[in-house]
């Protein structure tokens, strides 16, 4: 009987056990990958832990009346969270006023109207727009949007103002809204489009009455992701909204203002030692925690919406 190549030294348990060296190598490789995965989890956990610890220090030691004062001046130990929270909300609102219609329009165009050839060009361009460094957009917001748009709308407006920052953030967020929105609309099955066209519906009717209702959860997710990105945006606001040292509480979008992110950035980058007055350093972590909680819950919320879209079809 012909001896098989693999068993030329005879057949026993060792024949099927495989080479020791290779088995060990396999185990080492496995361990390396596990370590890589574990490390990233450890790092994230440490970040969250540090945030939580310093936040705890801040919350337990701060004079609570300082959390509700005339403005956000951490170096003078005035931590009016309202000021920067309202700043963030205002910038996000303005950003979404810009990004929602623009992004939605672009999404509808790309998904329903653009010919494949056009889409092949426009979609990558849109994604490149999403890759513009935010510092560039911040500068653009300051030197162009502020004088050419905001100050024309309102001649009283300061050069540094929340409105220009909000529009800048809106431009930054538009490609994201458009891209996620387009994915949601393209996920609507072709059969539904055909059903509608087969009934003699026009394109606009099909889009408004069939595609958008069917894709609504994905579109909501696109908005939420846009909001979450707008809240987290720092550079545009830090440059265009001014108010680097601190800010008085104000609802006027044509004035200087500060958002939670910009407040953190200016404090952390401040040359005159953040460690200065009492809890200034810890206040950074406090604001960071708030931001973390807000964006995390928005993202979780959006994620659930996207999942619902996937399940439907």
């Amino acid at each position, binding site marked *: 009987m012909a001896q098989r190549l693999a068993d030329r030294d005879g057949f026993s348990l060792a024949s099927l056990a495989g080479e020791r060296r290779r088995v060990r190598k396999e185990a080492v490789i496995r361990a390396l990958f596990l370590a890589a995965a574990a490390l990233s989890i450890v790092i994230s956990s440490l970040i969250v832990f540090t945030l939580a610890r310093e936040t705890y220090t801040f919350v337990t030691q701060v004079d609570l009346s300082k959390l509700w004062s005339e403005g956000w001046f951490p170096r003078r130990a005035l931590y009016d969270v309202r000021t920067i929270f309202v700043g963030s909300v205002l910038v996000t609102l303005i950003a979404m006023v810009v990004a929602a219609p623009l992004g939605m329009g672009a999404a509808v165009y790309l998904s329903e109207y653009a010919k*494949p050839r056009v889409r092949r060009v426009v979609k990558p361009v849109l994604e490149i727009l999403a890759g513009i460094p935010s510092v560039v957009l911040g500068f653009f917001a300051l030197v162009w949007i502020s004088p050419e748009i905001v100050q024309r709308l309102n001649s009283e407006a300061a050069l540094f103002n929340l409105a220009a920052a909000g529009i800048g953030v809106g431009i930054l967020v538009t490609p994201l809204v458009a891209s996620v929105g387009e994915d949601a609309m393209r996920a609507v*099955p072709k059969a539904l489009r055909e059903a509608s066209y*087969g*009934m003699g519906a026009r394109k606009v009717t099909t889009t408004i009455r069939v595609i958008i209702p069917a894709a609504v959860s994905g579109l909501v997710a696109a908005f939420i992701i846009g909001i979450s990105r707008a809240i987290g945006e720092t550079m545009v606001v830090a440059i265009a909204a001014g108010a680097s040292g601190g800010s008085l509480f104000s609802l006027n979008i044509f004035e200087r203002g500060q958002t939670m992110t910009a407040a953190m950035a200016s404090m952390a980058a401040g040359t005159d030692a953040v460690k200065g007055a009492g809890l200034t350093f810890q206040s950074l972590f406090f604001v960071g925690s708030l931001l973390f909680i807000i964006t995390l819950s928005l993202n979780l919320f959006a994620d659930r919406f996207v999942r619902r879209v996937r399940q439907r079809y």
Partner: protein
Amino acid sequence: MPPEAKTAQGSGSGSPSVVPTRLEIKRSPSDVPLSPPEDVPVFQVDDLSVYYGSFRAVRDVSMTVCERQITSLIGPSGCGKTTLLRCFNRMNDLVEIARVAGKILYHGVDLYHPDVNAVEVRRRIGMVFQKPNPFPKSIYDNITFGPKVAGIKGNMDEIVERSLRRAALWDEVKDRLKESAMGLSGGQQQRLCIARALAVDPEVILMDEPCSALDPIATGRIEDLMEEIKSEYTIIIVTHNMQQAARVSDMCAFFTAEVNETSDTRTGVLVEYDKTEKMFSNPSDERTENYVTGRFG
């Protein structure tokens, strides 16, 4: 009124026990009138070819489709039946690279004339698709979609009831019109799609393998339904099921796919078009005979 009488028979009950009536009506070829009293042409297809880019999917089809008849298109996969069907209501317009050569006259008007608006065509020539595709809306809203799109305003209750009755679905869904259409069974969904197509009162209904996703009982109901509505509508149906073509259609067109010599593609050609009864008993072309007797395809 005849349609109501028919509807009553078709939708008498939702229970499956009435369904086999369909199967009892075994039509022998002689039952089929050789030619309906008035053969009024609705479509005249003249030397039609359809291209996808440079690929020719169907070539040189000429045939006449008559009013209030059921015309079936049969043939093996890839022979262009569906492509041809989608020319009748210009659904191929949705495929960017599709191009049509030759003519389809609808009551003497060239459907592909530059002034013809596909939207207007589709309001007169409705379509039912292979896979039931109700909108993810309520049953009621599915039916009213077409009339609303066509600009009809006001109370639609009557249209909804009439359409659902004609599609033999009323008794099964009348108590849950506001519920989602997605909760219906496949056969009910397909009848809903037929009702939805009927709601805009089209003249022609194109059916693209309407029963291929359905079980035999649901199929029987759809076939019954076609028989019932035939007195008011012209129906063109693509089917893979030869028994179905033999059972329901008055006229039958057999297509086959020719392998192109220069490339590895297939182009559909119309082999034979005649009365269904003749196609299945005494076809003139050997290829038809081979297909209908199951020796090919």
